[in-house]
C-alpha cells in the first residue's frame, strides 16, 4: 500500500529511500541501487524489491 517507515524485521528507517529507489530502478540494476542506498541486510532488501505502491489507486474509493 504505502512504503513502511521502518524495515519490519530489523527496524532500520527506510521510508525516505523509497522514492529514490523507485526512480533509479527503472534503468539501473536493483542490486547496485540497494547497495548504494545502504540496505545491507536481506530483510530491508526484500522489503524494497517486493513493495507495490497502491495508495494512489485506493484513494479513489471511499474509506
Amino acid at each position, binding site marked *: 500500500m504505502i512504503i513502511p517507515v521502518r524495515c519490519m524485521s530489523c527496524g532500520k528507517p527506510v521510508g525516505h529511500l523509497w522514492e529514490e529507489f523507485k526512480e533509479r530502478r527503472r534503468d539501473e540494476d536493483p542490486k547496485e541501487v540497494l547497495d548504494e542506498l545502504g540496505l545491507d541486510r536481506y530483510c530491508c532488501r526484500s522489503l524494497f524489491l517486493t513493495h507495490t505502491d497502491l*495508495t494512489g489507486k485506493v484513494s479513489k474509493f471511499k474509506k
Partner: protein
Amino acid sequence: MTRPEDQEVKEERGYKMKLEKIDGKGKKLKFIAEDTNPAMMNALRRTTMNYIPVLAIENVGIIENSSPVFDEIIAQRLGQVPLVFDPDKFNMHEDCECEEGCSNCEVKFTLKGEGPGILYSGELNCKSGDVEVLYDRIPITEMDENQEVDLEATACLSIGKDHSKHQASVSSYQYYPIIDVDNDELTVEEKKSCQEICPRNVFELDGDKLNIENEERCTLCKECVEEVDSGVVVTGDEEKFIFKIESICSLDPEYIISKAAEVLEEKADKVVEKLS
C-alpha cells in the same frame, strides 16, 4: 575453555575489556572486544538495543483525515519517524517530577497538509522548536484532491523493551575467528577449492601456499573445513569478539555504547543494593 587459573587472572583484571575500533562511519560501528566473555557481550548487545532512552511520537490526536490511509496507520507511521533530540535534556515519564507531562518529558507536534500530493515527515512542525525529524522525506500519507490531514502529536522518551519504535540500534557480536591452516597437509586442489568456496574471501592463494588474508571477515561458516579431509581448522575465540552496531535512531553508535555501559552499571548497582 576456561581453566581455574585463568579465572583468577580474569578476576585480577576486573573484567576490563580492551576495545579496538576496526571500522565505522556514520551510523555504523564495528569493534573488537578482548578479554571478556559471551555473557558480557550479550549484556552489552541487549542493552544497546533495548535499554537506551529514545524519543518517539506516542500520542496522536486526529482532527481531520480524509486521506486513504487510516487514522491508526498514520499514528503508527508517525511513531516510527526517527527524531533528532538532545538525550540529556529529556526525562522519562516515570522519572519526571511532573505528573501530567511537561516540557521536560514531552514534545508536541502538529502536522497539516492538503491534497493532491504526498505528505512528508518534514512537514511535522515542532511546537517547542528544538526537536526535528532525522529524515524529512519519509512519506506519511498520500492525498488526492479535496483530501486533507490535520493532526496533533505528542512525543516522549522510552526504551526499546517498551516498544520497538524506541529501539536505539541493531547490534550483534560473534566470536573472533581462529583459522588454522596446515599447508603441508593440503593438496593443491584442496587449497584451490578452499579459496573458491569461502563466501567471505578469507583466503588467498599465493603460489602453493594458502594464506589467510581477511581474518575478520570470517563468519565461522566452516564451508572450508567441509571441503577438506584435514588441515583446516576453524574455531571461535571465546574471549575475543567482533561487535557490530548500527544506530537506527538519531544517536551516534559511540554514544549508544557508552550510554549502554552506564545503564548496565546502574542495573548492577541496583542488584547489589537489593541484596545488601
